[in-house]
């Protein structure tokens, strides 16, 4: 019998290769290629007065230096605004190379091509750019004050303004028995993949084509973008994502200036050109996320049920808006989490600043939304003197209420309708795992020893698997190998394992026979990309559907060969056989041979498919009408809307009474992503996400000074945590299948990161009795919060206040 594959915690098939150093990342390719390097702006806002390359002319190995005026039409156009939205009334994008003005430190000004990257970087240092610095707009408060503008033609620095509402939230707040009003802050962080961006272009003069390798999350869309910019038909451009050392969102942005410029330069020079980003470049010229200021008004009843929630927030989107306003849209819609609120209003203003662009980073606006909602739940509980879990429970959407329509429009333009979930069960489970009910005793005991312990909890719902579609192609060859391809890319998710599990299960073949290719437009050209926790849902289902087509064809051909009804056949271990009569069987590889009628035999197996070997029982054509040669299947999955995963995290922290150091003692996760294809991989995703969440809660931030210089643009200063800072994470799974897709699955990629800041803030607040309204928090900040709490400048929790909003 074939071992059941779907749902099995098998080991990642990618790891032996990657762990043995046999991965092929961007910079492992193209050793003979010319190297590109970029002169980038040292100013947050400046006019480019002059670019002097005199000193660079002397450097042996110089090939070319390009500035804006070298760029031909289309390449010289502003970069595309990828996701337009009616509310984005003042969308602006940058140029591939600065067109007279720079709007953030790190914006590319000139491109150098040289014989190797060392020479290229030396030349970058020799190019003198004369800038006239302009006043910089840094931080949300300066942006909204608008005393200075990032773009002269964008009044108030406002790129977008959007209101979504259900019911009359202001009225519901005003008339509620209890009311609270407060402000919350979240700072910037970034995806920070260990491998930065990179592009390697290989022009082929013989046919005018170009093959581009990019460390991207969407090779198909990069391909269309390059084709459009270079004025080529897409058939002349192939884009391949090789092994990618992490993406986390930043690599879904495209086309990056470098993707266009490297491809263009390669064609101009008729040479291979490669660029691999360095760490500082990544900090200042890729993308960031998270920064928001939120103003919350909430009205609730005696049980803590939210009757009205009115949230206004300011979102910092950086210097340009190539990715539209997806992040704040997600914040404003996913803020609701697993709760039904009486009336809801979310209003956001998305602002320009002279800082690096803001585009989705794992979680993509959800961590901010969840921080807002969960801090709100904690405040309600505190206000009413109720248990925090109990207040959440009182607001949950109940299992029988699905599908549940939140009445808003989600990031995919579709209604925000939750498909399935079981929030009460998840809460019970996470409480049990963390020891919620026993904690007060534990806390008290610790306090007696002078230790400060705190417990926190947070819940989230994550819309995953957004459309529009993905496809899958599955082919069985005459050796019995199964070749699977899908267009979206992989950055460590384990697609080569989980997609193979789906195929092994659907086709009844050994998983070792299955080989998976992703992110290669030569193999599959229609795709959207890897983001929004969508790969398993979209490509997983597409591949399953492709397998079902292939299986149907295999059974039909086998049925003819075995003179059996296809309905009586099964495929086990790569053998098609009659159910109950396993001796009447034919290997799938032979079926593959028969599926392709041949004139010429190229090997032993092929002989069976040649014209004189086949029975000529009927007069029909060798390939029947409506059929194709070959044993393969192709299909697409296009969901009507997103499927909503959910989860709850809880943590126990200990805070040092002297140093204010925060240590996480326990961390528990209950996670529900529907049917799991591979629980080990789901856990790995959750673990990685929690680690990134802890990073964002306690360590990482983007330290901009008032002139827009990023002060911590290195791994010396940007505190990415080590394994030593990450606690053991206990994971529990619920499996509430999605009714929306054939496999019943939901996305899992981003989940782990989403509620962490909210959980840690809640736990620190519980340990300290001091209001935590701003994340991330450092020991230094907590230390001073304590000082200010002593003088009454900062609120202590548990102090009963008036219901009147301040």
């Amino acid at each position, binding site marked *: 019998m074939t071992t059941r594959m779907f749902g099995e915690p098998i080991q990642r098939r990618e790891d032996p290769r990657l762990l043995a150093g046999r991965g092929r990342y961007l910079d492992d390719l193209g050793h003979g290629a010319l190297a590109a390097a970029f002169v980038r702006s040292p100013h947050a806002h400046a*006019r*480019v*007065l002059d670019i*002097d*390359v005199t000193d660079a002319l002397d450097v042996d190995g110089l090939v070319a230096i*390009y*500035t804006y005026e070298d760029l031909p039409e289309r390449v010289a156009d502003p970069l595309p605004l990828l996701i337009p939205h009616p509310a984005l009334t003042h969308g602006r994008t940058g140029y591939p190379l600065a067109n*007279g003005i720079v709007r953030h430190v790190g914006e590319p000004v000139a491109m150098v091509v040289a014989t190797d990257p060392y020479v290229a970087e030396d030349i970058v240092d020799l190019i003198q750019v004369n800038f006239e610095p302009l006043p910089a707009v840094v931080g949300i408060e300066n942006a909204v004050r608008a005393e200075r503008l990032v773009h002269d033609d964008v009044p108030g620095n406002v790129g977008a303004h959007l209101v979504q509402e259900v019911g009359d939230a202001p009225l519901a707040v005003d008339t509620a028995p209890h009311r609270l009003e407060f402000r919350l802050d979240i700072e910037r962080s970034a995806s920070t993949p260990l491998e930065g961006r990179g592009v390697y272009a290989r022009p082929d003069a013989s046919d005018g084509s170009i093959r581009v390798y990019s460390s991207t999350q969407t090779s198909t869309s990069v391909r269309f973008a390059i084709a459009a910019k270079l004025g080529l038909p897409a058939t002349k451009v192939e884009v391949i994502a090789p092994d990618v050392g992490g993406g986390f969102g930043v690599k879904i942005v495209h086309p990056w200036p470098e993707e266009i410029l490297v491809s263009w330069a390669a064609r*101009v*020079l008729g040479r291979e050109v490669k660029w691999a980003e360095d760490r500082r470049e990544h900090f200042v010229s890729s993308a960031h996320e998270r920064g928001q200021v939120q103003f919350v008004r909430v009205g609730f009843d005696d049980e803590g049920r939210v009757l009205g929630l009115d949230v206004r927030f300011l979102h910092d989107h950086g210097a340009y808006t190539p990715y539209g306003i997806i992040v704040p849209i997600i914040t404003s819609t996913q803020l609701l989490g697993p709760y039904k609120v009486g009336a809801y209003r979310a209003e956001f203003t998305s602002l320009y600043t002279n800082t690096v662009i803001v585009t989705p980073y794992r979680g993509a606006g959800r961590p901010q939304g969840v921080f807002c909602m969960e801090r709100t739940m904690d405040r309600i509980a505190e206000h009413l003197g109720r248990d925090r879990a109990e207040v959440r429970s009182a607001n949950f959407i109940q299992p029988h209420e699905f599908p549940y329509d939140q009445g808003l429009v989600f990031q995919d333009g579709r209604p925000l309708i939750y498909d399935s979930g079981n929030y009460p069960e998840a809460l019970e489970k996470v409480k049990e795992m963390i020891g919620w009910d026993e904690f007060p005793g534990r806390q008290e005991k610790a306090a007696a020893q002078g230790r400060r312990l705190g417990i926190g909890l947070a819940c989230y719902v994550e819309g995953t698997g957004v459309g529009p579609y993905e496809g899958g192609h599955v082919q069985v060859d005459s050796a019995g190998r199964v070749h699977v391809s899908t267009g979206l890319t992989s950055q460590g998710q384990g697609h080569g394992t989980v997609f193979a599990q789906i195929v092994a299960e659907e086709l009844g073949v050994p998983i070792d026979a299955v080989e998976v290719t992703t992110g290669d437009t030569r193999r599959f050209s229609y795709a959207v990309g890897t983001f929004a926790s969508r790969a398993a849902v979209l490509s997983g289902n597409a591949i399953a559907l492709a397998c079902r087509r292939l299986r149907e064809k295999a059974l039909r051909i086998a049925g003819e060969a075995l003179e059996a009804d296809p309905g009586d056949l099964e495929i086990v271990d790569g053998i098609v056989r009659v159910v109950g009569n396993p001796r009447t069987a034919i290997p799938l590889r032979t079926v593959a041979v028969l599926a392709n009628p041949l004139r010429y035999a190229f090997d032993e197996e092929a002989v069976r498919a040649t014209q004189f070997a086949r029975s000529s029982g009927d007069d029909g054509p060798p390939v029947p009408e409506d059929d194709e040669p070959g044993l393969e299947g192709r299909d697409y999955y296009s969901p009507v809307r997103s499927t909503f995963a959910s989860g709850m995290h809880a943590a126990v922290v200990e805070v040092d009474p002297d140093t204010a150091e925060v240590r996480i003692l326990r961390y528990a996760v209950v996670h529900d992503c529907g049917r799991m294809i591979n629980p080990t991989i789901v856990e790995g995703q959750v673990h990685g996400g929690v680690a990134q969440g802890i990073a964002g809660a306690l360590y990482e931030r983007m330290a901009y000074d008032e002139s827009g210089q990023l002060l911590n643009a290195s791994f010396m200063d940007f505190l990415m945590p080590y394994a030593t800072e990450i606690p053991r994470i206990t994971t529990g799974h619920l499996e509430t299948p999605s009714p929306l897709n054939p496999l019943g699955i939901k996305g899992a990629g981003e989940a782990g990161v989403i509620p962490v800041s909210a959980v840690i803030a809640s736990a620190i607040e519980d340990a300290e009795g001091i209001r935590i309204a701003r994340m991330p928090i450092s020991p230094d900040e907590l230390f001073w919060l304590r000082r200010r709490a002593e003088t009454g400048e900062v609120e202590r929790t548990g102090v009963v206040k008036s219901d009147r909003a301040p």
Partner: protein
Amino acid sequence: MKVTGSAVVRAPVRKVWDALANPAVLAKAIPGCDSVETAGPDAYRMTVSMDVAQVSGTYAGTARVTDRDPPRSFVLRVSGQGAPGTADATVAVRLSEAEGEATQVEYDADAVAGGALGGVGQRVLAGVAKRAAAEFFVAVDGELTGTAAGPVTEAGARIVAGADRRVPVPAAPARGRWAIAAALAAGGAAALLGVALGWLLAARRSRTRSRPPRSMLWGTGTDKADPQYRSRR
């Protein structure tokens, strides 16, 4: 692409205009010049070798002089072609008196480069052209003031130009005063035409960073290709 620059030659205008009619001077002064010959009235043919960035090769070019106004100004139309690319340029040259019995030479070039040469970027081409022009004028200056081995600059660095070129130049029978005009203009459009004068030499020297001071080499040259001054549409 526009390249503008100027240089001072330490001789009176008329002397510059006339004396440079000597084809030997001309041939010496154009760095990288393999040959110069007349090709009809006010027209010249020349062959030069040059390297621009990684693009190296020999270019065959023609130059035609128009709009003569001796000894003040002329316009030179040049076009060159070689394995690595093509170049076409129109160069306006003006001579005027400068302080101390000297001549101020100003040039204004508008050029288009094609092929591999066109791929090195406008800043590189303009930079090479300006440097080539400057070295050309230094060589001319050397010929006129009898310091043909190259004047010693204030900084004490020896300028290698003219006679120190790598290619021995046959005394091509260039006749007529426009030879020098061609040479001057060719200096201005050097990179484009492939009159890469001392650029190769300069590149070699640069490894020891002993280029002449910029004030002498570059005159008041400015590059008007700055992007912010120009809207593309």
